[in-house]
């Protein structure tokens, strides 16, 4: 696990947060065991939790205190965190200019950064982040991704990240786990997963969609008067275009149909029922 970034995805209500809470001992476990670093979270809570840094749900901080005071509170509870370490982390998450301000004046993005800072403070071996990019601007999301990747590589940290946004995870996770109705459906390397959900759909924008069906012999759905969905392999796309051009059919646009998350899950899980 060390050095890995595991993406934990599932639709709303699938049980991502609940699973994370079970791992952290925030909810009691009815069956099964959770081991962190070889320690059972229920029987040896202190040892197990010592090496974990986390943000659950949202970075809930003490709003009436400054960012620095918040970090100080966390630092007090660990032996290996001194003032230098706090400054180091503050710099790492890029909050050095606003760290003395009250958290109530922070934007959601800044709170998210402070949340990551408090999770990293005691040099955990396992970082568990529940939707850490919520509320961040695109630049912020990118920064967080770079930061997490760096942490995984340099500090040999294992990172568990939950999200309902597939696109967000696929760029930097190396493993992915899918949860549905509280059960893990699949855990796999990201590449294998991607290949698996590929669905080979292309959308063609043409002058008159009804004509196309009579010309070529592929499996296709007519969507509108001008749009048509064709089910073909990637290698066959140039052939199709060539064929259509030869028949004098005007093609305005050919694009690969992006799988929405819901589609991916429908494909993978056959739908999630929120109970």
């Amino acid at each position, binding site marked *: 696990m060390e050095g890995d970034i595991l993406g934990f995805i599932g639709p709303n209500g699938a049980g991502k947060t609940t699973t994370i809470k079970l791992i952290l001992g925030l909810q009691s476990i009815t069956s099964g065991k959770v081991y962190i670093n070889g320690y059972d979270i229920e029987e040896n809570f202190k040892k197990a939790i010592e090496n974990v840094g986390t943000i659950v749900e949202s970075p809930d901080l003490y709003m009436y*205190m400054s960012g620095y005071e918040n970090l100080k509170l966390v630092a007090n509870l660990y032996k290996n965190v001194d003032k230098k370490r706090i400054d180091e982390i503050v710099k790492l998450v890029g909050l050095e200019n606003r760290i003395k301000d009250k958290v109530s004046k922070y934007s959601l993005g800044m709170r998210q950064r402070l949340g990551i800072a408090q999770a990293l403070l005691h040099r955990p071996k396992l970082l568990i982040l529940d939707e850490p990019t919520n509320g961040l601007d695109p630049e912020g999301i990118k920064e967080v991704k770079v930061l997490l990747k760096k942490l995984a590589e340099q500090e040999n940290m294992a990172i568990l990240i939950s999200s309902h946004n597939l696109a967000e995870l696929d760029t930097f996770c190396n493993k992915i786990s899918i949860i549905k109705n509280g059960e893990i459906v699949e855990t796999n390397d990201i590449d294998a997963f991607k290949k698996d959900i590929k669905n080979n759909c292309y959308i063609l924008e043409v002058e008159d969609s009804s004509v196309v069906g009579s010309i070529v012999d592929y499996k296709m759905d007519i969507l509108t008067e001008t749009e048509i969905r064709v089910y073909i392999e990637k290698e066959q796309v140039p052939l199709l275009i060539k064929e259509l051009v030869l028949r004098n059919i005007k093609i305005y646009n050919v694009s690969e149909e992006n799988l929405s998350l819901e589609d991916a899950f429908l494909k993978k899980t056959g739908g999630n029922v929120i109970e």
Partner: protein
Amino acid sequence: MSKLIKNELVKIFSKKSMIVIGVIILVIIIGFNVLNKVSQNVSNSYSAYSESYIQYLDEELSNLDPNKPSDINKYVETKSQKDVATLAKDYKETSWQAEVIGTVISPIIEEMNNYEYIDKNNEALTASKTKYDEMLIALKNEDWKYFANKELENINTQIEDLNTLIAQDSENEDLKTQLKSLELQKEVVNLRLDKNINYGSDNYKSIAVQNYRMYMGNYIQSSQGKNLTDEEKSEINGYLEKANLYKYDLYNDTKYQNTATANYTFQNSIGTYIAIIVMVVVIVAGVSISEEFNKGTVKLLLVRPYSRTKILISKLIAVFITMLITTVAILLLQFIIGGIVYGFGTYMMNVVQFDFTNNSIVTLNIFAYLGLIFVCKLPIFILIGTLAFALSTLFLNSPLAVALPILGYMGSDVINMIAISYKWDWVKYFVTPNWDLSQYLFGGTPMFSGISIEFSITICAIYFVIMLVASIVSFKKRNIKNV
């Protein structure tokens, strides 16, 4: 664990509400001292009889005709009022002259007016007039002892009369009580003459004499009945205590009951300050756990390498430390402000308390006294704080956890009163009759019969443990729900 406690204290004291509470406390303390001081001065410079009052009476008189039988009684009454007002208007209301005019001279004036207008009895009028003139001279000569001697004579004759009556009817308890009252009056007049304490209320000793007479009189009157209830007994004990405290001052030439001292203000303000401390403790304890849950910050706390029991107990200890800090801060502020308003020198005076075990006076240093009182009140703070804390932990509802204990505290006296008057003996197993240990101080008898200091401490400890265990169990079992 000390780190956890320290963190909790940081959280408590970095809240803005603590600054607000601090300012409110400061305002209350200053207000209390200044008002107490101002109220002393107001009563010293006030005359009940003004020129406008006399003018008003004059107008009334001009509308009445002393020769008409329907008007005559009203005329005499108004004329007497006017005569008294005219005589008294030059004297301050607190002066001895004002008191003597009110109690001794005004009946004579009424008598004279009666003789003059209603009875038309010239002989009696002349006799009254002689008495009246004599009194006027004494008044002018500042001779209050003249009136004291007159009162003494009067009392002596009454005592003689009463003694003959008792000799005839030795079983009559009413007569004996009357005799005791008269003997008290005699003692008071003798005290005035011996210690040179004038009538009125313009100095401490005069007030002390009045109060001694009032409380002792009440004691004699109320202790007459048999089969007294517990409530009546505690009332009577209150009279006895007050009477003896003033008596001590009078016979020892001390001024311990003087209200215009920092010491007295200190003692007098303790009740208010205890209420403030209770409020602060309840507010801090009531939000302690629930706020962390409601704002989601509890997750931050629970993923640290500390057991939940330790986290909970640290929070409770932080509440108690806050209570101690508040108490010390309030006492220190009162010490400084009281010292500024009344002079720090008055702290050198002792506090006197009446000890019921052997009906004697105990004197002790103000700081020893305060320490004793606050140690005795500690169970209130601890139990009410733990109650708020337990409610906060069990229901995760801050308003409930703050409101309920405060209501309980305010209602505790009422609960006790109702239980006493209906003789609900089982209420003694409640916490409210037991948590104020100061009821046992100085040989005091508790409100409830059949409870002792050991019993009270045991009851308080049992309630404390129950609330603590309930909190710990609930906190350990609680799942952090998804928001």
